């Protein structure tokens, strides 16, 4: 619960008083990707507030073993990766990738004309760390096809060159 509090923008204003309003409600059955950011709002730091927030975050981590992947986040991610056939967690957005590797995967997917969802992990540090645990993969981009982790940039490029990616996408789209 304490970890989930880190998502709340209220933490910045009053770091020691936690509001559980957003996190005691149950996650609805279908969670469109847009809601991912509503439940896990990015924190906007001012200089002074960030020290307090980070300090309290560190304090928490020394008391409890800090895992970014809370049960709530895991459930939400389960829904997000299955909400669409192709889901890409990347740095930046579809229109403005902020990393060469993320851009490569975006361009490949665009050239194959498949509909895909992108999520910008730079906007939300806890989502970023939680995803590393969820996927058991330490870097981004991370591509999910049909709810299953497919790989990062290198793997996507290899599969694209060998034709494996196109095959897998066709299968996923038709099922």
């Amino acid at each position, binding site marked *: 619960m304490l970890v989930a509090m880190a998502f709340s923008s209220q933490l910045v204003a009053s770091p020691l008083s936690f509001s559980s309003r957003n996190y005691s409600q149950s996650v609805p059955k279908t969670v469109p990707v847009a809601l991912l950011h509503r439940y896990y709002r990015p924190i906007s730091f001012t200089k002074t507030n960030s020290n307090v927030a980070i300090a309290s975050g560190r304090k928490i981590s020394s008391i409890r073993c800090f895992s970014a992947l809370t049960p709530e986040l895991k459930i939400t991610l389960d829904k997000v990766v299955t909400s669409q056939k192709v889901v890409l967690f990347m740095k930046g957005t579809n229109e403005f990738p902020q990393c060469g590797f993320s851009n490569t995967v975006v361009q490949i997917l665009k050239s194959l004309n498949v509909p895909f969802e992108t999520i910008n992990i*730079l906007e939300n540090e806890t989502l970023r760390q939680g995803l590393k645990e969820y996927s058991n993969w330490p870097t981004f981009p991370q591509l999910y096809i049909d709810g299953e982790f497919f790989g990062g940039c290198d793997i996507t490029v290899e599969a694209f060159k060998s034709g494996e990616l196109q095959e897998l996408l066709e299968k996923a789209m038709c099922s």
Partner: protein
Amino acid sequence: MASRALLSRASRIKTKLETVLEAALLEVEDVSYQHAGHAAVKDSGANETHFNVSIVSSKFEGQTLVKRHRMVYELLSDELQSGLHALSITAKTPKEAAINISSKNS
């Protein structure tokens, strides 16, 4: 700890991969300078953050690409938590590497 600080990240990566994977061929290249501008790296400085790693090892036999990459990531988890930002991995078995070379030559 002092000896660790003296060794560059590239040599640490090389040592870790060599010992465990018994690599027939291992290349580690620091390409941090290519990513010096980008968003996540800008503040901390482009120092030993991005590497290209090329490994040929028989330990990759029968493993999917995802498994091979995960093996490498697990071996380098310390580095990943201490500032290593991204790894571009080419992981081949000796057979695949030979096929690669012969198709390049032909």
